[in-house]
């Protein structure tokens, strides 16, 4: 039978993470939007199903609708441990998040350097192991180091979340080769976490084999966040479809698409 269109299976391309099936492969952060309406419209436009939140000390007289209340009915929340520099802080933050939000899902971050916000992979592996043993579904923010990622998978992480480039830098995938090799060999889904700045970055990450992409600053700080959310939504779909479609190989010489015979005057 010839290929005449997309079968149901080709259109639906779900993604399984931590035992849950998602339709969307775009995760969005919730920080830094110009206002709450734009945040909500952007999450909607991005068609995301999983959104990150941070855990912070409650402030005196906190009032109005809380963020979890606003988002929790619609999106699965993924609390992070952003700002933690030690295993101890990260573990406590994780436990508080679980208590506050009633979810054992966690984006685990242990920062090793204030300037680059690179993860501290040595502590990360320790914290990941402790939290997995404590029942968490751990998604660690990490580097594209395949040995570290293998260790994170070995201790039971549900995915690995390597940075594409520095958090908030918007520079895209700086080492596509490393990401591609990581994706090819990772036993758990690879979710590209930091550095996505625009649509082509997200598409490339997916083409290289990522299972999903997480963006925050790229959307929140765009001139028009809602439009950028649609862009990333489409880019992730495009990159994923291209990956599945099996792209043509790169060639180093030209190859005419129009037929080379039947030319007039030939």
């Amino acid at each position, binding site marked *: 039978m010839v290929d005449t269109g997309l079968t149901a299976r080709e259109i639906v391309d779900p993604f399984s993470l931590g035992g849950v099936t998602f339709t969307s492969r775009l995760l969005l952060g919730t920080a830094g939007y110009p206002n709450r309406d734009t945040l909500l419209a952007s999450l909607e436009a991005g068609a995301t199903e999983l959104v990150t939140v941070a855990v912070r000390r*409650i402030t005196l007289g906190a009032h109005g609708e809380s963020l979890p209340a606003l988002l929790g009915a619609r999106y699965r929340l993924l609390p992070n441990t952003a700002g933690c520099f030690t295993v101890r802080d990260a573990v406590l933050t994780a436990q508080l998040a679980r208590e506050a939000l009633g979810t054992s899902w966690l984006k685990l971050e242990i920062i090793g350097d204030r300037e680059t916000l690179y993860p501290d992979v040595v502590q990360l592996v320790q914290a990941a192991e402790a939290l997995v043993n404590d029942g968490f579904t751990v998604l660690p923010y990490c580097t594209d180091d395949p040995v570290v990622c293998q260790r994170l998978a070995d201790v039971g992480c549900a995915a690995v979340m390597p940075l594409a480039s520095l958090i908030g830098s918007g520079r895209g995938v700086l080492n596509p080769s490393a990401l591609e090799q990581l994706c090819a060999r990772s036993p758990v889904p690879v979710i590209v976490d930091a550095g996505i700045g625009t649509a082509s970055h997200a598409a490339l990450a997916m083409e290289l084999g990522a299972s999903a992409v997480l963006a925050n600053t790229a959307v929140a700080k765009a001139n028009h966040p809602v439009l950028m959310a649609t862009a990333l939504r489409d880019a992730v779909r495009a990159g994923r479809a291209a990956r599945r479609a099996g792209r043509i190989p790169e060639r180093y010489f030209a190859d005419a698409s129009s037929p080379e015979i039947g030319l007039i005057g030939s």
Partner: protein
Amino acid sequence: MSDTLLTTITINGIAHELPAPTIVSALTTLAIGADTAHVAVALNDVVVRRSQWDRCTLKHGDRVEIITAVAGG
């Protein structure tokens, strides 16, 4: 007589003097009700489940962290 003995505890990094404090009174100090959703509490770096909040009395020097979820990336 009516002199109340005050206990010094640290709530979210700031020292407070409270009489016979519990987790619930620490929450009250920040104008947060004990039934407020999406809040969690740690006492001296250990999470205190919500069901223990009213029976958990605080001692001098205790550190209480009261957190919620905020926008994050």
